[in-house]
């Protein structure tokens, strides 16, 4: 993350944002958040949490029914054109005309951003190369794989070198290889200084990419922080030791309690302690057991995941969360 200049406005700032749809559903309900310049912000939430609605408001495709939002310093309603000049957008359903070729789409996108023919053409080639689609550039997008489409969609969002890039679930439905290719691309873009606002249902994705994560449920933020902060809130990592058969479990418990507070363990051949220092606890535990003459079979450190965070703040797991998980159950102030 490049250090934000103190004078520049936040890349995204949202205050009391609301969006009600016909029928009274409040898809976004009192959202507050701020994304600093140069940050990768992960907007994490289950299906129906309000991620897409928020993104559509931020990219000027939808108007808020209350509250305000600014992107790159401009108001998304009253200064929509300025916002559009500064953002790149890759929407959830990579909306690309299947009858056009990748190259045509990129050139068209260049024209939409005011480029002249020659400039749009060379920028298209540059981007095709960047996302590894040079060979496929002349083929109709209808024949592309899901991963290729997403890469093209990303390339289109980059045509005008936007300050802020919005990616709505960029890897949903992708195979692991395509997913990590996209992650690499997002990281390299961020290294070049692009602010990234990324929505995802995947904990791993948020952990992998985001400098900060906001967890959204029922249209508002239920927790926010760096992945490490959020996990720390849920609890410290746990160190599990599997003892060799016939080992003295009681003696092991005594030896390990000197390293960290014991944690209840179902398994008889297993001892667990809290490991505030994470993996650094491993050598300490092994030495203590060794000195007590206890044979160890394996050791592992289990860190809380964002799933645990989500469970703690919403009372439901991310995978099992249904639409409109209530924000009232939040235990962590956002």
């Amino acid at each position, binding site marked *: 993350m490049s250090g934000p200049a103190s004078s520049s406005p936040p890349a995204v700032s949202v205050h009391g944002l609301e969006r009600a749809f016909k029928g009274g559903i409040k898809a976004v309900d009192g959202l507050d958040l701020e994304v600093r310049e140069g940050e990768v912000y992960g907007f994490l939430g289950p299906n129906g949490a309000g991620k897409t609605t928020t993104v559509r408001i931020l990219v*000027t*495709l939808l108007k808020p029914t209350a509250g305000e939002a600014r992107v790159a310093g401009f108001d998304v309603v009253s200064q929509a054109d300025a916002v559009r000049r500064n953002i790149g957008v890759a929407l959830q359903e990579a*909306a690309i005309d299947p*009858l*056009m070729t990748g190259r045509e789409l990129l050139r*068209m996108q260049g*024209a*939409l951003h005011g*480029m002249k023919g020659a400039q749009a053409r060379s920028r298209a080639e540059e981007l095709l190369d960047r996302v590894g689609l040079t060979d496929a550039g002349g083929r109709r997008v209808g024949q592309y794989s899901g991963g290729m489409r997403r890469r093209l969609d990303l390339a289109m969002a980059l045509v005008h070198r936007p300050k802020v890039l919005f990616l709505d679930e960029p890897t949903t439905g992708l195979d692991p290889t395509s997913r990590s290719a996209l992650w690499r691309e997002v990281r390299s873009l961020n290294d070049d200084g692009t602010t990234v606002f990324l929505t995802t249902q995947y904990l791993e994705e948020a952990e992998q990419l985001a400098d900060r994560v906001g967890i959204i449920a029922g249209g508002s933020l239920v927790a926010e922080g760096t992945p490490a902060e959020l996990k720390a809130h849920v609890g410290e990592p746990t160190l599990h030791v599997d003892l060799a058969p016939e080992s003295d479990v009681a003696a092991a418990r005594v030896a390990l309690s000197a390293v960290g507070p014991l944690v209840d363990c179902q398994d008889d051949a297993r001892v667990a302690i809290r490991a505030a220092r994470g993996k650094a606890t491993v050598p300490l535990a092994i030495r203590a057991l060794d000195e007590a003459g206890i044979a160890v079979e394996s050791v592992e450190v289990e860190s809380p995941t964002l799933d645990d965070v989500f469970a703690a703040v919403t009372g439901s797991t991310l995978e099992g969360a249904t639409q409109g998980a209530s924000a009232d159950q939040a235990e962590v102030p956002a």
Partner: protein
Amino acid sequence: MIAGVARESRVVTALGRRALSVQFRRAQLLMPTFVLPLMLLAVIASGTSAGRDLRDFPEVSSYLGFVVAGTLLQGALLSGLTSGMALANDIEGGFFDRLLAAPVRRSSLVFGRLAGTLGLAVLQMAWFLLVALLFGASYPGGVLGALGAAALAVITAVGIGGLAIAIAIRTGSMSLMQSIFPFVFVLLFTAPAFFPRDLLTPTLRDLSAYNPLTYVVEGARGLLQGDASLGDPWIGLAAAVGLAAFATALAVLALRDRARRT
């Protein structure tokens, strides 16, 4: 200011080019725009050339020559309508959102689509006039008359396109656009596209006076036949331009309205 106009015109050109090339890749839209009117022309010309023997039928080189103006008009209706369908398809598929998220004037999105309609209609009219010529039609009005008739039809295509685009923007529904298809023929048959106005039933004749396409098709016929008594080209031009201007304004307003509502 001038830079802004140049920029928007690049946008319109790019969108127009895209609309046109995609139209050619969509067989289900290409068939009606380029083939259907010719099929109708062939049927009418072969089966009902007896029409010429009817009393009150104007003196023209052949019935074929008379009907070609109706074919041009029919082509204009179809290219306009398919433009609306293509837009509805863009809206349903989310492609239109990409355009809306771009820093371009909203009216440029409408003009871009209409530029595609215009390009399509130019190709279409040239094709119809050529095929009719091969069928044996003659154009006593000469090359200039044929060009003028084609121009009237092209402007009309833009007008119909504007109406269709306005509906597509307001409904965003491809299936609704498709269901409009038959009604377009009402516009065609309440205009003297295939018969002179005097041969229409009294009700149709009264109705046709209110249909701007009546003046377009008569004007085009006058130009093709080189006979202003068949239709005044200037009145035709006024009707075509009036329709195009009105429809374009409607489409731009529809888009503004949509932006305000979303």
